[in-house]
């Protein structure tokens, strides 16, 4: 709960008088005020810097170090103060959290030092206020990445582990060429051959002087066909060998084959093999020529050798939406202006604007301010629209381009950050919500532990089961009493989500088959078993200690649960009777359970068998209901 709210509890309790006249049941007695007049100043000495605050301030958060009895470990008798050997500068923020309910993150502090202090004082970082949360998460992520990078660098510098298989060594050599000399040699050789292959592709189209028995010029490729063919063969052989080696060495072949680089490899060498297969066939020679175009893809193989190309490729991919929008807006503008120009120039004679698609070319050339001049408008209105077209072209093209360029890095970082923040936000909100519902669940737990029973029976049972004086702060007990009063007023009980759903389900099932009493009795037991399970979750000692019979075999069984029903002779007394005997056993776990327990829904387990012995005389009928766990 927020800080100041604890101070308003007296008001909320006083306002409960408004429920009294309409209450349908008598109210429970209030809890004894155990610590009256204990609102004193408390001195916290943190490495010499003295902080002072009210005791009540610290007790607002009983699940932290300062708010619980854990601080007694730091009490210093000689000076009558609490001494902490920690950083006073960061402690200031932690103390402010108690005072204001908001935790702030100081920007100049080191993130890991801050985290350590938070962990020491038992405060979860998720409650950092919105003003500082983003900064905190960013710093944390940077820190984590830096640690990760350092680890990766360390790993890369590792010597080859002796037990790495040959395959793994090969893969490592391919991915990190600087690990061994062989890998480096291979790296440079492939690079060289890529360059040679690309140069050969370029040069073979250059005219090389006329051949001896021909009139026109021939390209070098046709003149020295054999040489070029040999060169091509050598390159393709090297590329094929490299590809096959990579394929063998890849840890996941399927993933390797799917990757972009391998596709580029395949596309680079395919034309050669297809050409080998399809020689001397005049019909498909046209297609064969087209295939040779794909040889230019060999230049993309350089991206393995250049990190810059990889980054460019990745950023283009991530900016795809901006590029797409640019294309779309250009297309729209082109269509509009082409239409306008076509109709404007329709009247003039011998015009080149024969159709709208024909006008597309003019529009593109004008909008990109190229202006070849092969198509020009002749009419005045055509010229007017032509000038508007070129002006708008400047706008349409020149504006998004710098934005895209600057968006490259910004969008890249931003999209990464936005997604992480969204994921964090979900988990963060979920945890805060869970902590909040922990407050409600704390009350349910409180009920099950028979605190209320204790208060009710106190008058009659003077021989104290010296129920351990709970270390629950006064605020908790009073708040629970308030909720109890509300229950009495409305004659309904608070239950948790799960049992509500099961009771809903049962009520719908129960009408034809079971009697009303049995359905009513099922849920409280479901509750009790629910809660005992939750109790056990947080305790450090072995669970099931509160089960007298110690039956723990079925805890592990998650598929079905048995809820044994007992007839409810009178509504509360049998429950109380059962709770009372479990309370002393619960007591040792009480100190571990706090209001901020984040209780995950766990499947209820069998009811404590210890209840059997006491209420066996009530056992007239028992129906076992099987409810399958979630």
């Amino acid at each position, binding site marked *: *709960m*927020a*800080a*100041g*709210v*604890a*101070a*308003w*509890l*007296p*008001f*909320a*309790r*006083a*306002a*409960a*008088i*408004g*429920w*009294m*006249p*309409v*209450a*349908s049941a*008598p*109210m429970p*007695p*209030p809890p004894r*005020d155990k610590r009256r007049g204990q*609102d004193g100043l408390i001195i916290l000495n943190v490495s010499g810097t003295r902080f002072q605050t009210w005791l009540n301030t610290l007790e607002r958060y009983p699940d932290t170090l300062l708010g619980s009895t854990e601080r007694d470990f730091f009490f210093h008798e000689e000076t009558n103060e609490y001494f902490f050997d920690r950083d006073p500068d960061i402690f200031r923020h932690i103390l402010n959290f108690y*005072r*204001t309910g908001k935790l702030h993150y100081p920007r100049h502090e080191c993130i890991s030092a801050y985290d350590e202090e938070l962990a020491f004082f038992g405060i979860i970082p998720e409650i950092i206020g919105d003003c500082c949360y983003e900064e905190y998460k960013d710093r944390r992520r940077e820190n984590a990445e830096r640690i990760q990078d350092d680890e990766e660098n360390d790993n890369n510098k590792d010597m080859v582990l002796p037990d790495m298989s040959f395959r793994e060594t090969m893969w490592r050599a391919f991915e990190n060429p600087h690990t061994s000399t062989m890998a480096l040699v291979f790296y440079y050789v492939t690079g060289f051959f890529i360059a040679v292959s690309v140069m050969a592709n370029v040069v073979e189209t250059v005219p090389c002087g006329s051949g001896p028995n021909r009139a026109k010029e021939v390209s070098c490729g046709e003149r020295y066909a054999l040489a070029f063919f040999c060169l091509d063969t050598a390159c393709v052989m090297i590329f094929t060998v490299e590809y096959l080696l990579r394929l063998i060495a890849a840890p996941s072949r399927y993933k390797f084959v799917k990757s972009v680089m391998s596709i580029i490899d395949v596309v680079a060498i395919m034309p050669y093999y297809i050409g080998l297969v399809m020689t001397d066939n005049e019909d498909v020679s046209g297609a064969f020529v087209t295939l040779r175009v794909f040889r230019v893809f060999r230049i993309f193989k350089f991206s393995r050798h250049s990190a810059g190309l990889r980054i460019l490729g990745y950023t283009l991919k991530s900016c795809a939406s901006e590029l797409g929008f640019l294309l779309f807006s250009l297309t729209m503008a082109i269509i509009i202006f082409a239409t306008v120009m076509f109709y404007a120039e329709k009247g003039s004679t011998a015009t080149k604007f024969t159709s709208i698609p024909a006008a597309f070319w003019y529009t593109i050339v004008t909008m990109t301010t190229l202006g070849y001049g092969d198509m020009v408008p002749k009419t005045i209105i055509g010229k007017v629209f032509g000038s508007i077209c070129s002006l708008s072209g400047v706008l349409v093209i020149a504006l998004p381009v710098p934005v895209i360029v600057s968006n490259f890095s910004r969008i890249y970082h931003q999209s990464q950050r936005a997604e992480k923040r969204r994921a964090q936000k979900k988990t963060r909100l979920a945890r805060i919500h869970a902590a*909040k*519902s922990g*407050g*409600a669940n704390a009350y349910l737990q409180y009920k099950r532990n028979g605190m209320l029973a204790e208060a009710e029976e106190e008058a009659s049972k003077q021989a104290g089961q010296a129920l351990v004086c709970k270390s629950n702060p006064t605020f908790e007990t*009073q*708040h629970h009493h*308030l*909720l109890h*009063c*509300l*229950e009495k*007023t*409305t004659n*309904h*009980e*608070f*239950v*948790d*989500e799960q*049992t*509500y759903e099961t*009771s*809903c389900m049962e*009520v719908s099932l129960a009408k034809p088959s079971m009697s009303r009493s049995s359905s*009513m009795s099922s*849920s*409280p037991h479901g509750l009790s078993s629910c809660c005992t399970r939750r109790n056990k979750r947080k305790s450090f000692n072995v669970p099931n200690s509160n089960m007298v019979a110690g039956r723990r075999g079925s805890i592990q069984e998650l598929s079905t649960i048995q809820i044994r029903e007992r007839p409810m002779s009178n509504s509360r007394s049998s429950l109380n009777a059962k709770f009372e005997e479990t309370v002393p056993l619960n007591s040792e776990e009480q100190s571990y359970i706090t209001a901020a327990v984040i209780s995950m829904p766990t499947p209820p387990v069998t009811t404590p068998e210890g209840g059997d012995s006491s209420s066996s005389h009530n056992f007239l009928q028992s129906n076992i209901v099987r409810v399958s766990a979630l």
Partner: protein
Amino acid sequence: MSSCRKRCKREILKFAQYLFRFITGTLNADSVEDELELSAARHRPEALEQLEAQTRFSRKELQILYRGFKNECPSGVVNEDTFKEIYSQFFPQGDASTYAHFLFDAFDTDHNGSVSFEDFVMGLSILLRGTVQEKLNWAFNLYDINKDGYITKEEMLDIIKSIYDMMGKCTYPTLKEETPRQHVEIFFQKMDKNRDGVVTIDEFIDCCQNDENIMKSMQLFENVI
């Protein structure tokens, strides 16, 4: 007809202004943001001695109360939204806003839309240190939503519904639609002696004083502070 013409004129003027701003490039001039001024900005309560005299709290108790109050509302007054927020935090499972609204009306005795520390402490003084008669009076005032001196069935239904809303969904036994109405019927059966459909203050006080449970529960919160 003339109003139409006036409207046309106004529209044309607006368009001309727009065109002018379009040409000169001042289209998106920042409109002056209205500063959201907290109207009831600061409130300082009366001196401690005066409050001590007017209420039945001791000096120390007033100090503790004020510290908590000021912490949550630094400006010195609570407006209805803050009030609802604070009260809702005590009932996480349900929706306490409707009941908080009624409470706010009950505390805000001068009906100025905000609860100052004096209102707060006066109300608490009645609730915690008042006589039974005063407490019952206060409760009647709470139920009487329009403050006309009679509690009608509709008012009672609103109040009871808001109390049940605080329980939320997950209750045992499950809340049904007619539960609040039944509750109202029971209440009216008990309280409305002359069966005229409304409960007056005298009927209310009479009936409550005869009911032992209610009397006992009125003493419940004596030692809250």
